C-alpha cells in the first residue's frame, strides 16, 4: 500500500515540474516559430510552435541593419574584454583579502562589504561617471562593472579552501607573491574562475541599462539595449529599419513587420546563452553553493 502511494506522488511531482519546464520551453518555441515566419503572415495569428510561412527574411533584415551588426560587436567586445579584465582583477583582490596576515584585512573587507548594504544612489553615481568622462564612451560598460562585492567574496571563499601548505612551500622555494598567484593559485582555481567568468559574461551580455542611460551615441549601444529600444518604441524603430533598408520601392515584397523583427532580435539575443547553457550550467550552480559557505 505504501509502495502505491509513493508511485502516485512520484508521478504527481514529475507532472508538476514538467509543467514548469513546459512553461519555460514553449514560449521560446513560439518566439522561434514567429521569428522564422513571414511577418505579414504572422499578423493573421494562429502561429504556435511551428512557422506557417517559413522565411528567414526577418533575420536577413535584422542583420542587414548596420546598427544591429554594430551592436552585436559592442556586446561581444564588452563581454569578452570586460569579463577577462574583471575576472583577473577580482581574483587578485580576493587573493589578497584571503591573506590572513595582511595588516588591515578586516577593515578593507568591511570597506568593500559595506558598499553592498548602502549606496549613494543612481544620480550621484551617474554624475561621477560624467565627471570621469565615462558616459558616452565604450568604457562605461567595462570600468564601472570591474568588481562586484559578491564575486570577490565567492572567490575569497574558494581561495580560503585551498591548502595553505602549497603556498608555504612555494614561498620557501623563493617564489614571489605574484609568481605564486599566477603560477599556482590561478591554475588551481579554474572552477571558480569559470563560475565567476560566466556570471560576469552573462551580466555583460544581458545588461541593457548602461546602454540606455549612460550612452547617447547610437553607435555605442549594445544588442540588449537595442532590443529594449525595440520593445519600448517598436513601431517607430521598425519603420526606420524598413526605410533604411531601401526596400520601399519593392513594398509589395516586404514580408517583415516590426513584430517579426522583434522576434528575430529576441532569438539573436538569447541564442548564445541557450546554446552554451547545457555545457556550462553546472558551473553556475557551483557558484551559488560556494558563495553560501561562511568563511
Amino acid at each position, binding site marked *: 500500500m505504501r509502495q502505491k*502511494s509513493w508511485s502516485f506522488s512520484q508521478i504527481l*511531482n*514529475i507532472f*508538476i*515540474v514538467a509543467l*514548469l519546464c513546459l512553461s*519555460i520551453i514553449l*514560449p521560446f518555441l*513560439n518566439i522561434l516559430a514567429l521569428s522564422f515566419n513571414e511577418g505579414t503572415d504572422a499578423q493573421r*495569428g*494562429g*502561429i*504556435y510552435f511551428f512557422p506557417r510561412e517559413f522565411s528567414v527574411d526577418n533575420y536577413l533584415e535584422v542583420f542587414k541593419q548596420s546598427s544591429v551588426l554594430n551592436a552585436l560587436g559592442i556586446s561581444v567586445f564588452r563581454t569578452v574584454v*570586460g569579463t577577462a579584465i*574583471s575576472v583577473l582583477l577580482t581574483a587578485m*583582490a580576493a587573493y*589578497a583579502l584571503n591573506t590572513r*596576515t*595582511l*595588516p588591515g584585512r578586516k577593515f578593507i573587507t568591511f570597506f568593500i*562589504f559595506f*558598499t553592498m548594504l*548602502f*549606496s*549613494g*544612489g543612481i*544620480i*550621484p553615481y*551617474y*554624475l561621477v561617471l560624467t*565627471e570621469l568622462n565615462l558616459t558616452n564612451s565604450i568604457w562605461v560598460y567595462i570600468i*564601472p*562593472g570591474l*568588481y*562586484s562585492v*559578491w564575486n570577490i567574496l*565567492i572567490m575569497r571563499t574558494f581561495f580560503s579552501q585551498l591548502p595553505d601548505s602549497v603556498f608555504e612551500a612555494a614561498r620557501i622555494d623563493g617564489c*614571489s*607573491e605574484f609568481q605564486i598567484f599566477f603560477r599556482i593559485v590561478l591554475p588551481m582555481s579554474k572552477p571558480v574562475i569559470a563560475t*565567476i567568468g560566466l*556570471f560576469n559574461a552573462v*551580466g555583460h551580455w*544581458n545588461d*541593457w*541599462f548602461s546602454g540606455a542611460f549612460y550612452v547617447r551615441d547610437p553607435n555605442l549601444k549594445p544588442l*540588449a539595449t537595442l*532590443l*529594449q529600444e525595440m*520593445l519600448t518604441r517598436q513601431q517607430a524603430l521598425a519603420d526606420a529599419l524598413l526605410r533604411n533598408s531601401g526596400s520601399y520601392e519593392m513594398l509589395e515584397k516586404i514580408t517583415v513587420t516590426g*513584430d517579426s523583427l522583434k522576434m528575430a532580435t*529576441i532569438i539573436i*539575443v*538569447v541564442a548564445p546563452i541557450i546554446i552554451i*547553457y547545457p555545457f556550462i550550467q553546472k558551473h553556475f*550552480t557551483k557558484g*551559488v553553493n560556494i*558563495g*553560501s*559557505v*561562511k568563511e
Partner: protein
Amino acid sequence: MEVTTGKNIGPEANLGKNSKKKKNRVKPMKFTIKNIWKHRAMYIMLLPCIVFFIVFSYLPMAGMVLAFKEFRFDTGMFGGPWVGLKYFERFFQDPQSWTFVKNTLIISGMKLILAMPFPIILALIFNEIKSNKLRSFFQSVSYLPHFLSWVVVVGIIQSILAPNTGLLNELISFMGGDGSTFYLMEEKYFHSIMFWSYVWKDIGWSSIIYFAAIAGIDPALYEAAAIDGASRLRQIWHITLTGIRPTILILFILSLGNILSAGFDQIYLLKTPGNAEVAEIIDTYVIRTGLQSGQFGYATAVGMMQGVVGLIVVLIVNRFASKKFNTSLW
C-alpha cells in the same frame, strides 16, 4: 548599474552545513612599516579594487550632499548653493509621491512575501523525485530563465499577451471568449503579470539554495520518523521544513533590505501608459526625474531616502536575527 552577478543573498550568510570547518585562525599582523612592506604585493593587488570602490561607491555616497544642494553643470557635484531640505519637503508634499511609495511597497511586498513559498515548494518537489537523471534535467531547465535579461523576458511577455495574435488571447478566443484584451495596457492585470513573471524567472534558481539545505539534513531523522509511523507529508512538515528553517529565515531577512526597491528592470520594462498608475515605483521615478529630466538634486534626495531606509531595515533586522536566531550578516 553595475553588472550584478550571482544571487543576492548576502555573502557572509551562514547557511548551515559547511560552517563547521574551521581553519586555525591567524590574526592579521600589526600595522608596522615592516609588515606593510612584507605584504606589498598584496597591497598592489588590492589597490585597483580599493580605488574602484572609492570612486564608484564612496564618491557617490559623498555625492549625496546633492540632496541638499542645487545642481549646476558649471560647478559640478559639490559646488552648487545649499538649499536645505527643499527637495525633501517637495517630495513629502507631493501627493503623487505616496502613490509611488505605495506602489513600491505593494510590488516589493508581493515579491518578498507572496513569492517566497514557490522556490521552497519546488525544492521540496525536486527532493522527492527519485530519478537523479530526470531531476537534474528538470532542474537545469528551471534555472534557465534566471540567465535571461528582463529585456528578453518582457519581449516574450509582450508577444504572448499581445491582443488577438498572442498565445493567451488565441487560447481564449479558441475557447469562445473575447481574445482582444491588451493585457499590458490594463491596470488590473499589471500585478499578476509582474508577479508571475517574477516567480517564473527565478523560481528554479532560488530553489537551489533550499535544495542544498534539504540535502544537508541528516537522513537518520527520516528513518526514525518512518519507524515511528510518520507519513511522508508529516516527515516533510516536521523534518524537512524544520531543517531548512534557518535558511528560509536568513534569506527572508536579507531580502527585507530590498523593501523599497521593487526591481527596476522588470518594472521599467513592463510599464506602459496604460498601467503607469500602479507601475510607477520609486526606482523608476528617480530615473525619470533625475536621468531623464535632469532634476539631479531632487532625484538624489529621493534616492537617498530609499537607500537610508533600506540600510536601517537591514541593520534592525540583522540585530533582531542575531539575538533571536543567532544568525547574523557579519
